[in-house]
């Protein structure tokens, strides 16, 4: 049994597989490299040309803006990162070289290295699939690099979303704050197992009232503000407690604390010594699904017990798990026939799960309040989650427990 522990190594010129279909004992050596010009400004992210043939591709990123920028190549789900380059200083030029496999992608820049990014544009790679080396360690490093980049990008999205949410709350604009609550949580829910790894952060950011009280820690974070914003619902849930609204100083205290804590999370995942392993990724994926079905999770409607925005968290957890899966799918598929079948099954199960959730809404338009979802409907959601969780629980074995094909 192998226990590979491979640190993330995202360099200025990270080599990543775009849609890696690892074919053993073949290389892309000798193929000519296509250069793609990328210009990042404060308002645009131009990529020229928008379509290239498969094979080595170098994205030459020029930062024509005023702030440090990042450049990402995303899968066609718009979420999974296949390659990225960070810390491109104003005026600087950096290369990102990848082995481009045919498919549809998106490119996006992130000036300021915070938020959703700007200039999201389709990018296409045409032609035949390119054989790549069966180098086991390289494949693992690329998977880890891709997922690590995703964690960083979500932390970067989290910071401004939480800031906007807290700003509205502290300003007393409760309607706006209530409207931002679900979306502020989305980046966090996508990478929650990573935050879990930083000991004190998850309890401070995401503990529910009973959890904080049971552990004797101060009740802070998203759910503390949720309780204040939906105080009537909170009083109904805890009729024996004399729950009172927070005053302005109280709002500022819990608001600033949440901002500080998500910034601490951002700093932690952007620290030089931050590293993940393949098993972090695969086990994190199943951990995300366990978050949904837990007795205090989304499926029973306990996660957001006052706001009833559980379906938004539900989809965010699923998306995070899907990106983790996407990071290692090439490895799983290349190791064994069972792994190949597993990947196909997971594709179907993820699609079914996401499709079912989308019958209740979307991040863009919002989801129905979970307290309006009937028990029978929750049972189907739970069954679909089981249908996904069961095969996903074998992903770690498919990635780490099977020797590479000769």
């Amino acid at each position, binding site marked *: *049994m192998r226990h590979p522990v491979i640190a993330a190594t995202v360099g200025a010129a990270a080599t990543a597989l775009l849609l890696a279909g690892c074919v053993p004992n073949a290389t892309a050596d000798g193929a000519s490299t296509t250069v793609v010009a990328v210009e990042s400004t404060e308002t645009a992210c131009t990529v020229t040309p928008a379509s290239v043939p498969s094979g080595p591709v170098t994205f030459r990123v020029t930062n024509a803006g005023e702030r440090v920028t990042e450049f990402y190549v995303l899968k066609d789900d718009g979420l999974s990162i296949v390659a990225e380059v960070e810390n491109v200083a104003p005026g600087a030029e950096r290369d990102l070289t990848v082995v481009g496999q045919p498919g549809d992608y998106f490119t996006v820049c992130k000036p300021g290295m915070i938020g959703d990014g700007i200039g999201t544009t389709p990018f296409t790679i045409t032609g035949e699939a390119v054989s790549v080396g069966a180098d086991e360690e390289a494949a693992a490093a690329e998977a880890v690099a891709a997922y690590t980049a995703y964690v960083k990008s979500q932390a970067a999205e989290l910071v401004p979303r939480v800031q906007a949410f807290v700003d509205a709350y502290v300003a007393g604009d409760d309607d706006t704050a209530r409207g931002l609550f679900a979306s502020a949580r989305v980046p966090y829910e996508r990478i929650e197992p990573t935050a879990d790894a930083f000991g004190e952060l998850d309890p401070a950011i995401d503990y529910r009232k009973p959890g904080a009280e049971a552990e004797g820690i101060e009740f802070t974070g998203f759910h503390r503000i949720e309780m204040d914003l939906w105080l009537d619902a909170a009083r109904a849930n805890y009729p024996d407690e004399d729950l009172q609204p927070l005053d302005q100083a109280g709002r500022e205290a819990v608001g600033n604390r949440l901002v500080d804590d998500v910034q601490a999370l951002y700093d932690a995942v952007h620290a030089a010594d931050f590293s993940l392993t393949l098993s972090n990724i695969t086990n994190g994926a199943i951990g995300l699904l366990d978050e949904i079905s837990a007795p205090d999770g989304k499926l029973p409607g306990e996660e957001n017990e006052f706001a009833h925005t559980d379906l938004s968290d539900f989809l965010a957890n699923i998306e995070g798990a899907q990106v983790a899966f996407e990071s290692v799918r090439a490895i799983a598929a290349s190791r064994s026939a069972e792994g190949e079948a597993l990947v196909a099954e997971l594709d179907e*199960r993820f699609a*079914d799960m996401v499709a079912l959730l989308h019958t209740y809404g979307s991040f863009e338009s919002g989801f129905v309040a979970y307290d309006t979802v009937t*028990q*029978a409907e929750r*049972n*189907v959601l*739970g*069954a*679909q989650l*089981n*249908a996904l*969780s*069961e*095969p996903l*629980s*074998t992903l*770690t*074995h498919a990635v*780490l*427990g099977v020797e590479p094909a000769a």
Partner: protein
Amino acid sequence: MIPVEVTRRGLLGAVGAGLGAGLLAGGAAGAATATAIAGRGAGAAGDPAAAVAFHGAHQAGIVTPAQDRLHFASFDLMPTADRADVIALLQAWSAAAARMTQGLDVSETGAVGGPPLAPPEDTGEALGLPPSNLTITFGFGPGLFADADGVDRYGLAARRPAALQPLPSFAFDLLEAPISGGDLAIQACANDPQVAVHAIRNLTRIAFGTAMLRWAQLGFGRTSSTSTGQQTPRNLFGYKDGTANIMAEDAGALAEHVWVAAGDDPAADWLAGGAYLVTRRIAMTIENWDRLPLAEQDDIVGRDKRDGAPLSGGGEFTTPDFDVRRTDGAAAIPATSHLRLAHEHTSGTRILRRGYNYVDGANALGQLDAGLFFMSYQRSPEQFIAVQRSLATDAMNEYIRHQSSALFAVPPGARGDGDWVGSTLFA
């Protein structure tokens, strides 16, 4: 395990014929004969830890001597499941059942033989336990043939048995939809509760993605005998039940009353060799019952609590005489007694009962949540309907409520390792 008392009926030499069937208690003299005793089935009458064959013309778990424990589960098919998914599930279920009934793990790698980084295929709680007479019996609900909107999801509508329709409502029904019905059902019976639970747990896991658990019921203390080699058990009212059940040894009664025959329903000949299964969760208002005077309890049941004898006299296996009158002129077996109304004498038919007691803790009012999980196998649902209608004036109704109801077509058995339960339907 409970030693089987094979001598009682043999010594009494009771011989009965044309016997009634009660739902909760009742029936008349046993069908036992010296011949039947000599030919009693394996299982409970034999080694309670032994294995019962999964393969055969009929599914096991129907005439198999009733085991002590039950775990019953009803499933709904997932909206995403197609015909191929259903077939694959039924094949996987049969393969798993063939192994588990023999005391094996659910798969070859099982609980501890698989790779260390993968979840074990078997959940492991039955490791080291004997087969315990485990039987796993599969049934098909109406939803397999048409969903709630009448859609024929799997191309089976033309093969739907005409009799596989929702049961009519009966007096005193207090049915709860979430614990009624279902597209697929599994009855797991064993002499060790952990073995039965292990079976349902693993079969449920196999179904993830194709079928979802709808409701389930645990049971203990079989309330019926299905073999002449078994003692008559008591239900939670404290009365002997199942005295006049159809027994495994009574081939004639099984053919007449239990097994669907070819030609019964030409459109559904795939069911030949199978049966219809009715399940009813019958809650007992235990506290009220326990406050009844003994004589009134006897009158409601129609039997003597001590030995199970009909109130017309004799012993447990004495044929009830419905014409016997007391000195005051009243019928010895009252007109509203459960025994009289459930008996073939009144209902005109027989069914094979296989129920279990249940206690699911306490309800929200601090009352014992207890009763009978009634199950009966019969050649046609009409037999159950006739018995249940006959019970409309049953004095016992005041102390029971039917909370769940389900009807399943139970296909014939899998003939061997290459076969699977349901193959005749999907052929």
